[in-house]
């Protein structure tokens, strides 16, 4: 008898692969066959269920180390920011919170890359994707394509992406983005405006997808003089009346 066969019973197809399957170590082809057999065979499912808890416990076999507190600060800053944006999208007020403590030396090697929107206060210290006019909130720019607007900072949730926005007041604005991934199939990016005194995002008809190199230049329509924030979120093709996903780009005017 082998461990894949009980006395008096037929061998269970693929039983020899159960260990490698639960460890995620089967080659692609074999894994495909195994998955198909798993659909068919309750015996095989029972064997997987028998060993899966062992693999679920394996992470604790790693020597336990404290995660750096700066890592937690970065993650929470992004999460708080996105939660606030989501609340704004739902017309709820932002929550008042104390400024996060700054951990000495926290920027360290981690300042090279970030995923997610950064806390406003950290922008000046981080190599966030873009950023012109740091500290002052916005600044006059010479790189506005001769349009005469102000270039304002943009925060982008994609690692390695950069961008800027030219604010031309009553003439609208222009977002220039690079390194933006394609949205999911049948989805586009949509631009939203948050006007002063009304936290609910106003939809625009500015829908876009980046070109093959991840570049996009997008005209932001409308009078921006009373706009506090320009947001971009991924939406179903054709756009939405209110954001259905967390904004991935924001520019504060």
């Amino acid at each position, binding site marked *: 008898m082998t461990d894949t066969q009980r006395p008096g019973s037929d061998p269970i197809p693929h039983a020899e692969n159960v260990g490698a399957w639960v460890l995620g170590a089967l080659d692609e082809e074999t894994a495909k066959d195994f998955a198909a057999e798993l659909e068919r065979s309750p015996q095989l499912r029972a064997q997987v269920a028998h060993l899966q808890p062992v693999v679920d416990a394996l992470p604790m076999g*790693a020597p336990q180390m404290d995660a750096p507190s700066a890592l*937690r600060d970065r993650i929470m800053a992004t999460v708080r920011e996105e939660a606030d944006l989501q609340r704004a999208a739902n017309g709820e007020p932002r929550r008042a919170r104390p400024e996060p403590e700054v951990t000495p030396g926290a920027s360290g090697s981690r300042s090279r890359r970030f995923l997610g929107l950064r806390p406003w206060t950290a922008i000046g210290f981080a190599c966030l994707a873009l950023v012109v006019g740091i500290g002052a909130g916005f600044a006059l720019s010479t790189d506005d394509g001769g349009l005469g607007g102000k270039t304002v900072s943009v925060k982008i949730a994609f690692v390695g992406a950069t961008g800027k926005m030219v604010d031309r007041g009553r003439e609208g604005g222009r977002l220039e983005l690079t390194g933006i991934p394609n949205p999911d199939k049948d989805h586009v990016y949509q631009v939203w405006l948050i006007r002063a005194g009304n936290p609910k995002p106003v939809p625009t008809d500015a829908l876009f997808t980046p070109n093959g190199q991840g570049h996009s230049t997008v005209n932001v329509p409308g009078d921006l003089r009373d706009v506090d924030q320009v947001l971009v979120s991924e939406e179903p093709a054709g756009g939405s009346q209110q954001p259905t996903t967390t904004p991935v780009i924001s520019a504060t005017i």
Partner: protein
Amino acid sequence: MDPRSIADEDLMQRLRDGDDDAFEVVYERHGTAAFSLAYRIVGTRSAAEDVVQEAFLSLWRSGARYDATRGSVRTWVLGIVHHRAIDNLRRSAVHSKRRASDEGIEERFASKDRTDVEVARRGEAEQVRRALDTLPADQLRVVELAYFGGFSHSEIATMLETPVGTIKGRMRLGLEKLRHQLGGLVEVTR
């Protein structure tokens, strides 16, 4: 209600509703295990931080995908971390170099007061490592190469110049033995 007094599964419901305080508690409870797992797999602190950051932000943005019938929140969280860490590893140029750095990883807990939860986690971690230590060397090797190294069974067979069937057998026998050694722990972790 203070989210710290809420069970993980109920926190996930809050997290689905965009509650960042609930997310913070989930991070507090599982961040250490997540970072430890990521570090064990990718082998450098900065890469481990990247993995944990990406994993938790993914969790925050897709909390709705948690299915309580398929296991605990911790299993789900660590599953995401494991998946991303292995991806990171496969993309990394230091894949082969990393294995040599596995030796001498020092277990470090800061001197801050430990909560009961953290003490329990530490005990659990010791139990799993003790169980791993009972495995014959050849079984331990293949389990570690597969789980922490992200190698497929055929890659391991080539690496160890051993027949594929033998590798599969060692994986299975090693896991069976671990299950026996871990006893009730594996039931609890589901």
